[in-house]
C-alpha cells in the first residue's frame, strides 16, 4: 500500500520538514520556514547539566515536539500522539494506519536507520520522519533531511522507534486530526513572532541571548587543549551539522520573516529578514574560525571565540528588540 498523493520534500530540519509536509498533505500548503516560524521554534539553549557524550546540550531551537504542537493550533487542529509499551503493538498500529491511507509521522533514533550515512549515525533519539506506505517488508519513508524518499526494513525501523535513553521515542507515532482551517492569518504570525521575542529576550540565564552570553563565558574559560578543541567543535556541530539549514537556523528564520512580511503587510520584516541573514553569516564566521583552529591553521584562542559569541549575543539582543517593535 502506497499513498499516491503524497509528495516528498527535502528540508533542512527534520521536525519543521515533517510538520510542513504533513500539513501540506492535509490541504494547508506550507513551507518549512513557515512551520518553523509559526511554531516559534527559533531559540538558543545552553544546558551544561545535560550531557551528550561528555558535552553539554547546545540547541538553536526549541525542544522536540514544539514545532508539531506549534503548527497545529493556528490551523485549529491537534496531532494525535501515540506511544507503545510493546514494539510489536507499535508496528501493528503503524500498519493499521497505513492501511487506512494515512501518512504517519514517527520519532526515531538516527543511529539505527540504515539509510543514514555511517558517519552521521549518532545516538540522537528525536529524529522525525514520515511513513507513506509499505511494500513487502520495506516501509516507504519520507525523511525530510534526505533529498529522495528512502526505504527501511521493518526490523530496522522497529529498533529505531524503540531505542532507549534520553528522549526515548517509545514508538511514538503521530498524525493530524481534521484541519479547522487551511490558511494562516496575520494575527497568528504576529503572535508567533512575539513569542520568539519573549524566548530570546527572556529572563532565564541559560536560554536565548542570555544563554549565548553564558556559553561565551564558558568558552573563555576553556584551556587550550584537546578537550577545548573538541568542545568548540561540538558547538559548531550543533550549529551547522545537525540539520539547521546553516547558521543555527538563522537563515531558515530569515526565510520565514520574508513570508511573514507578505502575509502581514509589515514591510519592515523584509529589512529585519536581511539583518537575520547577516546574523546567520556571523554564526558561520564563528564556525569557520573555530574550524581553522581545530585544523591547526591558527592557534587555538578561546578568548577570541568567546568574543565572537558575545558579539553574536549583542547583535541578536538588538535584533529581537527591533523585531519586538515591528510586531507590537
Amino acid at each position, binding site marked *: 500500500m502506497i499513498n499516491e498523493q503524497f509528495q516528498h520534500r527535502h528540508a*533542512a530540519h527534520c521536525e519543521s520538514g515533517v510538520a510542513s509536509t504533513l500539513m501540506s498533505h492535509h490541504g494547508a500548503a506550507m513551507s518549512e520556514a513557515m512551520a518553523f516560524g509559526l511554531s516559534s521554534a527559533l531559540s538558543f539553549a545552553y544546558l551544561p547539566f545535560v550531557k551528550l557524550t561528555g558535552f553539554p546540550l547546545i540547541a538553536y531551537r526549541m525542544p522536540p515536539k514544539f514545532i508539531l504542537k506549534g503548527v497545529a493550533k493556528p490551523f485549529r487542529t491537534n496531532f494525535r500522539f501515540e506511544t507503545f509499551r510493546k514494539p510489536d503493538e507499535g508496528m501493528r498500529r503503524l500498519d493499521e494506519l497505513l492501511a487506512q491511507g494515512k501518512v504517519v509521522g514517527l520519532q526515531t533514533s538516527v543511529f539505527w536507520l540504515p539509510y543514514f*550515512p*555511517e558517519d552521521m549515525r549518532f545516538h540522537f533519539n528525536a529524529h522525525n520522519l514520515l511513513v507513506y506506505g509499505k511494500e513487502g517488508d520495506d516501509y516507504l519513508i519520507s525523511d525530510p533531511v534526505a533529498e529522495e524518499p528512502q526505504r527501511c526494513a521493518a526490523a530496522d525501523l522497529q529498533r529505531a522507534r524503540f531505542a532507549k535513553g534520553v528522549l526515548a521515542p517509545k514508538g511514538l507515532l503521530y498524525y493530524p486530526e481534521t484541519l479547522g482551517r487551511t490558511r494562516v492569518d496575520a494575527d497568528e504570525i504576529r503572535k508567533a513572532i512575539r513569542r520568539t521575542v519573549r524566548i530570546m529576550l527572556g529572563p532565564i540565564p541559560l536560554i536565548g541571548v542570555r544563554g549565548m552570553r553564558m556559553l561565551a563565558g564558558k568558552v573563555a574559560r576553556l584551556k587550550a587543549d584537546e578537550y577545548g578543541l573538541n568542545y568548540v567543535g561540538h558547538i559548531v556541530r550543533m550549529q551547522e551539522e545537525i540539520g539547521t539549514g546553516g547558521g543555527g537556523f538563522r537563515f531558515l528564520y530569515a526565510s520565514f520573516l520574508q513570508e511573514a512580511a507578505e502575509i502581514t503587510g509589515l514591510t519592515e520584516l523584509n529589512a529585519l529578514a536581511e539583518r537575520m541573514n547577516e546574523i546567520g553569516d556571523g554564526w558561520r564566521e564563528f564556525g569557520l574560525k573555530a574550524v581553522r583552529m581545530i*585544523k591547526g591553521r591558527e592557534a587555538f584562542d578561546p578568548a577570541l571565540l568567546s568574543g565572537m559569541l558575545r558579539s553574536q549575543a549583542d547583535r541578536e539582543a538588538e535584533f529581537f528588540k527591533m523585531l519586538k517593535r515591528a510586531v507590537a
Partner: protein
Amino acid sequence: MDIDAVPQEGNRTLGAHRKAVYARGADGRMVIVPSRGSEMDETVTVQAIERMNGLAEAARARALAGRSAPLEYWMYAKRMDVPLLSQVTGLWQWRIRRHFRPEIYAGLSHDVLERYADALGVSIEQLGRLP
C-alpha cells in the same frame, strides 16, 4: 548567505547525500538549496567520530592486555559511553564499570548479558570477544 556562497566543496561524512540549506537568491528572496557540504561540517563531524574511535581503540588495547572486558570496546564502538549505556540498559553506572573487569564479566548472568547485547545491537557471543 548568498546562493553562490552555499558550500559545494563536498563532505565525505555525508556520503552521496546532499543537505538542504537556506540562502539568498539574486532577487533577495531566501530559497532552499541542496548543499554537498563543506570543510567546516566535515571537520567537526570527523573530529567527533575520531574522538569516539580513539576511545574504542584504547578500550581494545585494554581488552587485549586483559585489563578490561570486550564489553567496554563494544560500548565505544557503538558510539555510546557509560552514562548512555546506563540509560539504555537500566543498569547503574557503577555496575557497568564493574562489569568491565574481565573476572566480573566472566560471571555475568545470561539476563544481564542479554541487556547489553540488546542495547548494543550485537549477539551475546560477539559481546564476549573483540571483532
